């Protein structure tokens, strides 16, 4: 193997990012529910510190962080590696999880006094497991290790869906589990084929070894489609709306904001790092078509929804579509590798700003649900009077989804649009614009209700602590703040990328 991972001095941070939450899971299982929330919050804070440390190391060093686990070099052993994109993902994950943790701490403390009940304890365990699984996905370099991480993710996400134990959420969870399982099995199958062809599962090595051959083609097709099933891209989105709409608000927030990003991230790595250039182009075109259809179709579906959370869930499927139209736009060229293109930055920014905006939206919707006991949009007239902060959070997050300046979503869409125009993809440009209009439609439907005069005096069923609303607002504000990034390729996302001699280049 020509490529050798070498542990960098601060590579142990990657191990910590993956393992710290695992330690906390074990501690909660061992110690019982009493201290669950405390352990979880401490760990999330530590996770944020680790994430920031990773980002700072990346900026300071300008190269990727690597860690060879146990000193066993790949292909026999497993390596972890974080480049700029991974670093950004890790920080985003830590931020969103921290905010959701704060939200859940108040919310779950609300329901019963001790916070030692079934849903509470399980929630904290699953949240920490999610943190570990997401970080493992973002830093994994080994395809099978990534499979285990994906399964960990699924197993943490599924019980979150049916935390409230109602029949319909259990049904949604089962459907989610089966479809995700199907997806990860297809991924595993592809892993087997790749091992059989190249004798390694290390992504760095594969990026140099991969050639166009039938085994790799079959493997890539299976893996990408399997991951699509987990990412719920149209037309494989059957499980997402009921699952994300049925889960408790903090769970929906992490599911929509973070969990479906992990398979997307892996598809990105497969297409850009593993697939040979021609194959990457073919797969990229197909993914872009699916992404475009997803944007248009599911935005219309979001417009049609009568319930707030279902609307947000459909909007997630639509927004995921934007991440897939990046592939042909970021194809790059001989002198401009993909990660120097503006589309690469736009895609990454879309990923991050959607995570922030969507979690804010779900949390705000959770506050609304908690306050009114329902989330039927038609009956929410004037909720802005009662819950002004939540309405503001929803509105700000909506700005980002619509791509209205100044917001992260705007910068992302503007970059993608520029790329679409410059690369000669008018249909993608039209899709981006139409998607923005439709998003405007469904966000506006809710805002209009929030500002309307209530038909009858509003009755709030349960007072919601202000803290909950402020968490949602903070996330939405973060999504808007991203809009002050400059409109150009972002250097941080290129860290560690140039080291990979690119498979996508001749």
């Amino acid at each position, binding site marked *: 193997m020509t490529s050798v991972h070498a542990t960098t001095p601060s590579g142990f941070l990657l191990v910590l990012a993956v393992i710290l939450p695992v330690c906390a899971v074990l501690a909660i299982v061992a110690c019982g529910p009493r201290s669950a929330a405390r352990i979880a919050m401490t760990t999330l804070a530590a996770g944020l510190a680790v994430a920031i440390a990773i980002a700072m190391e990346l900026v300071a060093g300008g190269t990727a962080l690597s860690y060879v686990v146990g000193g066993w070099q790949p292909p*026999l052993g497993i390596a972890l590696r974080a480049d700029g994109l991974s670093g950004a993902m890790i920080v985003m994950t830590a931020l969103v999880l921290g905010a959701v943790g704060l939200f859940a701490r108040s919310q779950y403390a609300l329901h019963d006094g001790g916070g030692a009940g079934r849903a509470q304890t399980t929630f904290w365990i699953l949240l920490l497991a999610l943190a570990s699984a997401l970080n493992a996905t973002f830093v994994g370099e080994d395809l*099978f290790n990534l*499979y*285990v991480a994906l*399964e960990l993710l*699924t*197993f943490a996400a*599924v*019980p979150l869906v*049916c935390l409230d*134990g*109602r*029949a*319909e959420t*259990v*049904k*949604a*969870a*089962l*459907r989610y*589990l*089966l479809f995700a*399982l*199907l997806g990860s*099995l297809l991924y*595993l*199958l592809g*892993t*087997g*084929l790749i*091992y*059989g062809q190249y*004798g390694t599962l290390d992504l760095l090595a594969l990026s140099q070894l991969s050639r166009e051959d039938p085994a790799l083609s079959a493997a890539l097709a299976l893996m990408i489609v399997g991951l699509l099933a987990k990412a719920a891209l149209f037309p494989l989105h*059957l499980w997402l*709306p*009921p699952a994300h709409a049925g889960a408790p608000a903090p769970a929906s927030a992490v599911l929509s904001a973070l969990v479906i990003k992990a398979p997307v991230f892996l598809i990105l790595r497969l297409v850009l790092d593993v697939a040979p250039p021609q194959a990457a182009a073919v797969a990229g075109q197909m993914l872009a078509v699916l992404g475009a259809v997803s944007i248009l179709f599911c935005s219309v579906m979001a417009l049609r929804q009568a319930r707030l959370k279902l609307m947000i869930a459909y909007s997630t499927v639509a927004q995921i579509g934007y991440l897939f139209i990046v592939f042909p736009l970021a194809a790059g060229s001989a002198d401009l590798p993909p990660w120097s293109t503006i589309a690469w930055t736009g895609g990454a920014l879309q990923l991050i700003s959607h995570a922030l905006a969507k979690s804010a939206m779900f949390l705000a919707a959770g506050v609304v649900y908690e306050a009114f006991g329902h989330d039927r949009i038609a009956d929410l007239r004037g909720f802005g009077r009662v819950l002004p902060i939540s309405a503001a959070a929803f509105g700000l997050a909506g700005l980002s989804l619509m791509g209205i300046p100044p917001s992260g979503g705007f910068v992302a869409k503007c970059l993608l649009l520029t790329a679409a125009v410059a690369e000669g993809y008018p249909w993608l440009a039209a899709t981006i614009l139409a998607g923005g209009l439709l998003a405007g439609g469904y966000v506006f439907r809710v805002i209009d209700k929030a500002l309307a005069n209530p038909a009858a005096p509003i009755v709030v069923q349960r007072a919601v602590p202000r803290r909950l609303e402020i968490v949602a607002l903070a996330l939405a504000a973060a999504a808007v703040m991203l809009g002050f990034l400059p409109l150009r390729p972002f250097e941080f996302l290129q860290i560690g990328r140039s080291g990979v001699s690119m498979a996508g280049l001749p």
Partner: protein
Amino acid sequence: MTAVLQPGVLFGLCGAVLVGIGLFAIVTHPALLRRIVGCNILGAGIFLVFGAVARRGAGAGLDADPVPQALVITGIVVAFSASALAVALLKRLSELSVGEGRAAEPAAPRSET
């Protein structure tokens, strides 16, 4: 032709067919329990492909490459955990909908989604 009859190839092909059979069961069978069984068949087929890969990689005094074999062991445990979770969900769902069915809808509950 004889190459196909090597265990390393034959059972790989066998695994490929099992994958198809498992997929068919998962997608078309109306009973949820049988879909879980289908997942296990699909899994078995995938593991056989791994096994074939391992067998082909015999060398250095070993009859097979130990790495894919170890992966399969991990995979089997994960698949079992998945089945257990799915079965538990299924049981819970049936309990819940029986309770509901008595209360609300006497007719056969038709799936809502």
